[in-house]
């Protein structure tokens, strides 16, 4: 049997922080008095997210999600709901752009501290078919706040 150590790219993809968010998602559940809600799914793989926001005076006061999917999509959703709390909608959309840039392999974005824990997902850019997983919650957020 092959007992070689796992590939370093794989170890980077499935690092502790990501698995922790996958197994103990933050802000999972439904939100009372949500002002924005959107459901998105990826028809190819079946990943699902229901995202709810409570926006007050253009500030995201709270974000919660219900989702089913792979470790990458669920960890990304969990991290995102933490990061966008108390951000203005333009700030949240700017973060969505930075996240997207990081997925395209932009090293500057991967070092951008404003992305917080989400930088742990930088390794996803090495796995092109998984990029859509990491961006699913961000696409939901963008859809939710669309005027």
């Amino acid at each position, binding site marked *: *049997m*092959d007992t070689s150590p*796992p*590939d370093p*790219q*794989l*170890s980077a*993809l*499935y690092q502790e922080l990501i*698995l922790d968010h*996958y*197994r103990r998602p933050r802000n999972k559940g439904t939100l009372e008095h949500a002002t924005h809600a959107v459901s998105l799914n990826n028809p*190819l*793989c*079946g*990943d*699902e997210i229901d995202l709810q926001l409570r926006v007050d005076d253009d500030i995201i006061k709270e974000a919660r999600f219900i989702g*089913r*999917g*792979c*470790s*990458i999509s669920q960890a990304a959703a969990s991290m995102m709901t933490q990061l966008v709390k108390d951000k203005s909608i333009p700030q949240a959309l700017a973060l969505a752009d930075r996240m997207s840039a990081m997925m395209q392999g932009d090293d500057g974005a991967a070092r951008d501290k404003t992305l917080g824990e989400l930088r742990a997902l930088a390794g996803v850019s090495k*796995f092109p*078919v*998984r990029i859509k*997983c990491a961006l699913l919650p961000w696409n939901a957020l963008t859809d939710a706040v669309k005027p």
Partner: protein
Amino acid sequence: MLDVARFRADFPLLAQRENGHPLVYLDNAATTQKPQAVLDAIVEYYRTTNANVHRGAYDLAIRATEAYEAARAKLAEFVNAWAPEGVVFTRGTTEAINLVAGSYGRANVKAGDSVVVTAMDHHSNLVPWQILCQEQGATLRMVEITEDGRIDLADFGRALERRPKIVAFPYVSNALGTVNPAAQLVKLAHAAGAVVVVDGAQSTPHLKVDLQALDCDFYALSGHKMLGPMGSGALVAKPELLEAMPPYHGGGEMISRVWDDHATYNKIPHKFEAGTPNVEGAVGLAAAIGYLERIGRERIAEHEQALAAAAIDKLTQIEGVTVYGPRGKSDRAGVVSFTYGDIHPHDIATILDQDGICIRAGHHCAQPLMRRLNVTATARASFYLYNGLDEVDALAGALVKAGALFGYVPA
């Protein structure tokens, strides 16, 4: 077991390495690799025989037509069709089923009628019937499956009480590998007055299929899942049904005479083959059939059953792995669907890919089935004649690594 090394040498793609490892291709239920004989047949057709079929008066066009019609006869013999003219070439199973729904279905299913499908049908044998029933005001009835992944015969019987116009089911489930008791289901459906549509996408490549003995009315198959080219496939039907059906697509080839405001139609099967057909696909499919016949489908089925049994044995020894579908050896094809603890199937597929192992992860175009299994997705390994026991070992070994990566250390 088959002499796998001998067959592998016939498949150029299998010699490739993936991510630095020998390729372990276990996604055969999605599509199979192609032997050199099929590639050669396609190249040879274009080098020596290419012209439009059923049109030209010159010798080259006649040879192209002969090659196309010889492929039809070969496929008819391979599945023991009722007659070669009962074989309509299509892009694959999906188009074949859409043809039946769009032509036979529209002409025969009326408001208040019912159409029966099963909870293990592929979306291609479900959505066309949904569309038909919505259009006609008919009822779609989905037959349940049992816990071990078989069609629930009691529920099948109840669905027949409404005397449905059409009953559709898969011969072999693409997601579970279940080999359904097709002949028995056909008999029951006929006794209730229904016309029977069998999705043969997963049976034709792997089992000896005898349509006259099976006695269904329509049978759909795909060439690319049986060593043939993508975009090749067929609807095989009882000729008298095809005769009575209205055309599906209009255009050249399918007509007899055309006036300003109407037309008369060609004989079957040409009535259903509007436009220039996929001759290269038909020729390649005939070469694939030749390859399969030289091995024999009984031997292929036996080989795949042995691989599936070995895979189930190895996988279920890994703590946390759940294998879906029937456990009997005789009613299971070479498809093994599984989950592994809380590791999502997509994560499993990504991890296995780094070891050069290709499996499918997802809903397998069977979302109603996934709901019944209470999962959003499964991982699926599916075998063919060129897979060996060493590849089952590689699969199990890579899964253990995936478990370690996710913190599943077997006791």
